[in-house]
């Protein structure tokens, strides 16, 4: 039989006796049980089922037996034992629900504990109070320590920020000074218009030290661009000279940076090139010198035609 095959009411009614006796296979049983909830068949089948069930139950009464005389006493003893067991279980459940503790802090599982006596309860309360005080003190100490740590950390952070701000201020100041110097240099170069004389020192050397002097004859100022210079000792410096009328005249002390470069603005020069034939560089004391102490290692000839204002 196909379990999905719908049966007629009469076919289902024929199954009722076997259903009561537990004789149907799975498909037949499923079909009959669908009939029990069928809107049209249900009433008839339920009625049939009840009458067949009654008949089968009556079959059980066809042959009463003679139980042993002590069977009832044993049955009553068994039931009394079941009752005691049930009561014990109920008491255990009540006790467990009355006071349970977690087996672990993170566990939902609980275990039963013995009910405490009044004295034990007082001792527990005192212990709990002392424990609470210690716990509170511990919490406060921890909070204080945490506050100190936070304060120290805050102070350190503030100091670091202040230091960084100071460094930034210094860097900004240096940058501003450099910009001002560049501005002055640019001003010197541009303000000379057509009266700027360029003097190249050591122009024949493709490598090695060299120097350019941008001389604003109109204003009597010059900008020096030096490069390829060797570093000098802390008490030494380079000196720019002009040779006028055959005599050296000191103009400016300067020191190069780590790259051997130096841009020196606002070098004071005459407003005429008349009589000035050369510009030269020597290494001198950082205090300066009124006359060269060495032979100039950079020399540049001043052009004659850019002479006057």
């Amino acid at each position, binding site marked *: 039989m196909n379990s999905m095959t719908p049966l007629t009411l009469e076919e289902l009614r024929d199954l009722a*006796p*076997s259903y009561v006796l537990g*004789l149907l296979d799975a498909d037949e049983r499923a079909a009959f049980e669908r009939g029990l909830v069928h809107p049209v068949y249900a009433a008839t089948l339920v009625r049939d089922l009840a*009458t067949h069930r009654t008949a089968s139950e*009556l*079959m059980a009464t066809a042959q009463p037996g003679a139980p042993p005389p002590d069977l009832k006493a044993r*049955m009553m003893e068994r039931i009394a034992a079941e009752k005691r067991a*049930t009561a014990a279980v109920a008491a255990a459940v009540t006790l467990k629900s009355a006071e349970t503790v977690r087996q672990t802090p993170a566990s939902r599982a609980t275990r039963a504990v013995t009910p405490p006596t009044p004295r034990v309860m007082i001792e527990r309360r005192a212990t709990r109070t002392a424990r609470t005080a210690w716990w509170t003190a511990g919490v406060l100490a921890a909070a204080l320590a945490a506050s100190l740590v936070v304060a120290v950390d805050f102070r350190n952070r503030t100091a670091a920020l202040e230091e960084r701000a100071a460094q930034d201020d210094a860097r900004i100041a240096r940058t501003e000074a450099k910009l001002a110097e560049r501005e002055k240099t640019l001003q010197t170069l541009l303000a000379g218009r057509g009266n700027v004389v360029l003097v190249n020192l050591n122009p024949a050397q493709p490598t090695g030290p060299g120097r350019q002097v941008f001389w604003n004859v109109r204003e009597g100022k010059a900008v020096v661009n030096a490069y390829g210079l060797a570093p000098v000792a802390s008490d030494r410096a380079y000196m720019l000279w002009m040779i006028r009328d055959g005599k050296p005249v000191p103009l400016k002390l300067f020191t190069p940076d780590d790259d051997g470069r130096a841009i020196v603005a606002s070098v004071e020069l005459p407003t005429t090139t008349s009589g000035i034939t050369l510009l030269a560089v020597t290494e001198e004391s950082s205090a300066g010198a009124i006359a060269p102490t060495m032979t100039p290692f950079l020399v540049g000839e001043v052009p004659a035609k850019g002479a006057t204002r």
Partner: protein
Amino acid sequence: MAQGDERAASALYDRHGAVMFGLALRMAGESADTEEEVLDAFAQAWRDAVRYDTSRGSVAGWLTTITRTRALDVIRARGRRARMTDTATATLDEQAAMGSGFAAPDAQVQQTERAVAVKSALDQLPVPQRQAIELAFFEGLTHHEVADRLSEPLGTVKTPIRLGMQKLRDALSSLAPESVS
């Protein structure tokens, strides 16, 4: 009994103990097992009393189902299915007449009257129908097993069972279901 009153259990046994013992004896066939089956059945009834639904049948039917199920468990556990049916019915007369000496007098009378009526109804069935029904009910055999036991084709067995049950139902319709609390 649902309220845990042991007196109700006592009354239940007085009223149905003999019938349930007879049913278990008929099915399991051994006295020691029979006694345990009956004890188990009444203990289960005691435990399940709170779940008993009066709308689903009589107390006798409920208790019969419990006892029969217990007996079938024993039978199946033994794997002993080769039981006769005719010898059981042969003892029906004296068993039914004897009843239970430990049942209450009124219950005993009722049981005896009912047993006689049921026996009469069974006796009126054609032998193939009665045998098939008794094999199914008392031994818990399936259709196939009944057919094997009776050496009949499966289709031939189903019809006698259906017809026999219908006749039995009609014959016993006058015995109203009892209501015992």
